[in-house]
């Protein structure tokens, strides 16, 4: 079956691809610009030339009769081809991901390159020419920025900044070291006669060395994430490769300038200028990124009313930071990197949770999409006769030198760093870091943008770069995972998100800073603390909304997140056991839910279940729903600690919650709005709901205590009007209702009216409470344990974390203690909850 599916997909891919090839051929035939035909920009140039002689265009040719439909290929040609290529590349990814046995051996990037080979072969077969290739302009302006932005935005912030020193050392010194040594060593070999007769000077070799020093993290990071290597190694490789791209480009530009200047004109002054330019360009770019980060953060303070496009602002401004840096000839990559890293925290706090999720996903889609395209096109580029100037000595020596010098650089720099690190980087980690020096698209992009006039051997360099890329990505990529496993690289400790952990971390930080103060020395914590202080006082004031400021504390964020998780578990539990439909239609469904649970738990704690049927525990479902959507920290505060998985969790939790819990309230609302997701309720009304809920709950509880069965009304009782008028509420739910929630109104009503007794089984009455509390909880600032302590006599298996589960004798909640018969049951409950706990 799987094979069939795979085959069908492959077939589809080929069909689409051949169409695009055919259309391309059409184009080639008609316009006769074959060679430099590429993804976007050259195609645009193309169109201007080709529309002139094309007949399908608009209005240029006189018509004799009214056409019904006409073939207008040239109208849509460029965007059509672009879209087709994107589709093709993404389908390649789909095919590559189909078989997990393959992807577990060969990294995805390697597979994509191989796919590119195949596609390139087809193009070659059709056109006998390199029709499509990745040209540097497209790469640097349309494909790279989103990858960098995504990487920097998803960067684990705290980890990054606490290791910033090491990362910078590796990225700056390491890159310069690689560029210099590779260039000089190659030049030495060339002088020694290892490469035959080439027209390359020392400067060109240095330029080549510079472009070869860009490390591409994609394949390595994929392996790291799969194997869960320890976070220090992870951040070192990740951060280094990100910053290293920026440094490489800067270095490349400096050497490029030297090459243009020509050998004889270079003197000490020019070299000093070059060094100064290196620092100005890199630090200027980084600074510009920070400026843009500040701008973005400030902008998100005021975008509350345009939530729909909120996420778009970040992408556009991020891109602008890239372009601005490019315009000022500063380092664009560094600019967008620091922009993403710095604004992350503040925009996450400022924006609505939905926008944050949207942003993350949009960035992921864009980044993954262009990454896929880049790798496919890297493979595709192999099919070009022009670039294949084979020089065995040059190619082999390049591969040898980049590996050797990478290792030397990494070991030396780590040795330096270890002298002052609290936790030294151990040898296996260092080895993996060295081995992780894969070369990728940036190197190719830089090589492709070499100027043939200045560097006569451009094609040799380009070809060598491609070979190095293939060699490292495919070969080293494949061996990376076995190596990591074989060396037993320290794995990341699987740390659950716990309040205890978070809180104690904070205590530890305070303790450490205090100890440093007592010792009277400025340690690492001194900086952290002073930055935190400064940030609290000024930065947050400037960049965060006042709401976000109030709730930015990470401990609170963890609390919120844990509650969300519980809510999700609860929903899952509910779905596996029954349905959560009781929230919408609580007359029956809740009973079902409970019954099913009762069946399941009957053997574990029969007594409780008996008791359960006797007593009205009222709101046993409510606490959880109130936990679920504690609205105050509507922004998840420390998302940077989320990995993708928990992000997914959050999202699905939201999804589930949206689906299952709030439909009832939305029922009477227009479900679609162009500019708003959802309107929020009037707080006064919610207050009203809250009060009434509490009252009705109290009443049902009272009646339970006194042994009076509160009634359930199915028809609208005339008395209802009188119960509601004191509250100043419109009586008829069918009229324009403040909450647009008829069910809810009805339920409050049925719970509070207790005249008609004993018609229905008691258990049913808990359901109205559930229905009622739901919207209320939505607006309550009070955390769950306040509202719901001890109301869960038992819980579904997964819910052991739930805050309301405080059933001890010291519980302050009066409910649990109120009835003597409840006391009888208390030990049972304890054992029961223990049981579920295990």
């Amino acid at each position: 079956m799987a094979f069939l599916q795979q085959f069908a997909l492959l077939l589809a891919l080929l069909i689409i691809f051949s169409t695009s090839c055919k259309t391309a051929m059409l184009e080639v035939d008609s316009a006769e610009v074959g060679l430099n035909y590429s993804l976007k920009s050259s195609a645009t140039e193309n169109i201007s030339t080709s529309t002139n002689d094309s007949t399908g265009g608009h209005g240029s040719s006189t018509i004799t009769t009214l056409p019904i439909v006409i073939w207008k290929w040239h109208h849509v040609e460029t965007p059509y081809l672009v879209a087709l290529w994107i589709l093709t590349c993404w389908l390649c990814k789909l095919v590559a991901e189909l078989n997990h046995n393959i992807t577990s051996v060969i990294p995805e990037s390697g597979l994509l390159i191989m796919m590119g080979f195949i596609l390139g072969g087809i193009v070659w077969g059709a056109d006998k020419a390199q029709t499509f290739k990745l040209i540097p302009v497209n790469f640097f302006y349309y494909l790279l920025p989103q990858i960098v932005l995504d990487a920097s935005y998803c960067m684990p912030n705290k980890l990054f900044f606490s290791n910033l020193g090491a990362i910078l050392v590796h990225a700056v010194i390491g890159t310069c070291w690689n560029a210099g040594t590779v260039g000089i060593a190659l030049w030495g070999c060339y002088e020694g006669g290892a490469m035959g007769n080439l027209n390359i000077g020392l400067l060109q070799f240095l330029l080549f060395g510079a472009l070869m020093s860009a490390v591409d993290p994609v394949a390595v990071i994929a392996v790291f994430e799969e194997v869960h290597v320890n976070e220090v190694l992870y951040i070192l490789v990740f951060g280094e490769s990100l910053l290293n791209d920026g440094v490489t480009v800067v270095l490349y530009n400096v050497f490029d300038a030297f090459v243009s200047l020509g050998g004889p004109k270079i003197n000490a002054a020019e070299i000093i200028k070059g060094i100064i330019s290196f620092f100005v360009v890199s630090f200027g770019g980084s600074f510009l990124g920070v400026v843009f980060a500040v701008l973005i953060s400030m902008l998100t303070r005021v975008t509350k009313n345009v939530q729909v496009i909120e996420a778009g602002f970040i992408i556009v401004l991020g891109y602008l930071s890239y372009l601005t840096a490019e315009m000022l000839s500063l380092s664009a990559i560094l600019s967008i990197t620091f922009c993403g890293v710095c604004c992350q925290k503040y925009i996450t706090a400022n924006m609505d949770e939905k926008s944050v999720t949207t942003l993350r996903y949009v960035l992921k889609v864009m980044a993954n999409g262009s990454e896929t395209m880049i790798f496919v096109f890297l493979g595709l580029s192999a099919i070009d006769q022009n670039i294949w100037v084979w020089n065995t000595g040059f190619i082999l020596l390049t591969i040898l030198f980049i590996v050797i010098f990478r290792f030397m650089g990494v070991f030396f720099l780590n040795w330096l760093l270890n002298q002052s690190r609290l936790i030294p980087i151990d040898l296996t980690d260092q080895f993996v870091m060295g081995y992780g020096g894969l070369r990728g698209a940036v190197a190719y992009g830089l090589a492709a943008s070499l100027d043939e006039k200045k560097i006569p051997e451009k094609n040799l360099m380009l070809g060598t770069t491609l070979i190095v890329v293939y060699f490292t990505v495919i070969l080293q990529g494949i061996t990376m995972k076995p190596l990591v496993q074989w060396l037993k690289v320290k794995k990341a400790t699987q740390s659950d998100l716990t309040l205890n952990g978070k809180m104690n971390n904070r205590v530890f930080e305070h303790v450490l800073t205090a100890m440093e103060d007592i010792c009277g020395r400025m340690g690492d914590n001194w900086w952290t603390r002073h930055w935190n202080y400064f940030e609290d006082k000024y930065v947050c004031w400037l960049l965060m909304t006042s709401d976000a400021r109030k709730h930015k504390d990470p401990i609170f964020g963890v609390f919120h997140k844990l509650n969300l998780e519980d809510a999700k578990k609860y929903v899952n539990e509910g779905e596996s056991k029954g349905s959560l439909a009781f929230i919408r239609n609580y007359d029956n469904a809740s009973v079902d839910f409970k019954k099913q649970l009762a069946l399941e738990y009957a053997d574990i704690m029969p007594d409780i279940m008996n008791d359960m049927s006797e007593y009205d525990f009222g709101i046993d479902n409510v606490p959880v729903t109130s936990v679920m959507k504690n609205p105050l920290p509507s922004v998840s505060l420390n998302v940077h600690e989320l990995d993708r998985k928990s992000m997914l969790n959050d999202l699905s939790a939201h999804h589930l919650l949206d689906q299952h819990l709030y439909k009832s309230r939305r029922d009477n609302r227009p479900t679609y709005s162009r500019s708003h997701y959802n309107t929020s309720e009037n707080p006064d009304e919610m207050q009203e709901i809250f009060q009434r809920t509490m009252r009705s709950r109290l009443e049902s509880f009272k009646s339970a205590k006194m042994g009076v069965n509160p009634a359930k009304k199915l028809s609208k009782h005339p008395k209802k009007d009188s119960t509601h008028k004191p509250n100043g509420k419109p009586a008829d739910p069918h009229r324009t209702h403040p909450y647009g929630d008829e069910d809810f109104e009805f339920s409050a009503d049925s719970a509070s009216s207790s005249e008609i007794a004993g018609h229905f089984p008691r258990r049913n009455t808990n359901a109205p409470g559930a229905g009622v509390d739901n919207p209320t909880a939505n607006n309550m600032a009070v955390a769950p344990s306040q509202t719901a302590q001890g109301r869960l006599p038992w819980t579904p298996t997964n819910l052991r974390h739930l805050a309301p589960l405080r059933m001890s004798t010291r519980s302050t909640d009066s409910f649990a203690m109120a009835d003597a018969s409840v006391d009888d049951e208390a030990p049972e409950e304890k054992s029961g909850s223990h049981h579920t706990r295990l």
Partner: protein
Amino acid sequence: MGSTNSTLLKIPNVEVLMQETGLKLVAEENCLNVSPAHIIRLHDRFKALDKEGRGHLCPHDFGAIKELAMNPIGDRIIGAFFSPGKETVDFHTFVKILAHFRPVDKDRPKEPNSPEPINSRSNKLKFAFQLYDQDKDGKISRDELLQVLRAMLGMQVTDEQLESIADRTIQEADLDRDDTISFEEFRKSLEKINIDHKMSIRFLR
């Protein structure tokens, strides 16, 4: 090493101290940084804090460190230096407390006769635990937890939220359901956290 020796004379029981804490007295030549001996440096600091030259420190001596006043749990940390009932701390205890924060060293040979180094994981944890446990009953009660939380979170959250956070924290760690966190539970709840990293100061290495 003449100056070192003269300083040594002023510090009582230096050898015992070194053995107990593992802190270095004399600078070891390790490759790049030649750090001055820890104990001598700490002794200087001790003397600087002890403005009146009594040879011991009082709580108000610590209170004079102005950065410490900014620390939300500063007073608890100061309190940790003073064993119950005592109003002063001498140099010996001072160093021993600070030695909790020495990074754990793997390469240093472990002496079989010394049972547990002062900077071991559980000793570090004990230090943290007693910061919560102010009434020294071996348990962190809800109130004690609330106090710490309030100090650290400050005005950012309401009392209700604070209480629910405290409740949940206790519930997370509380295994025997007595609504308090004992040291054993405390240790278990932090099992996955690398205490050696989080409770170590680099310059005490």
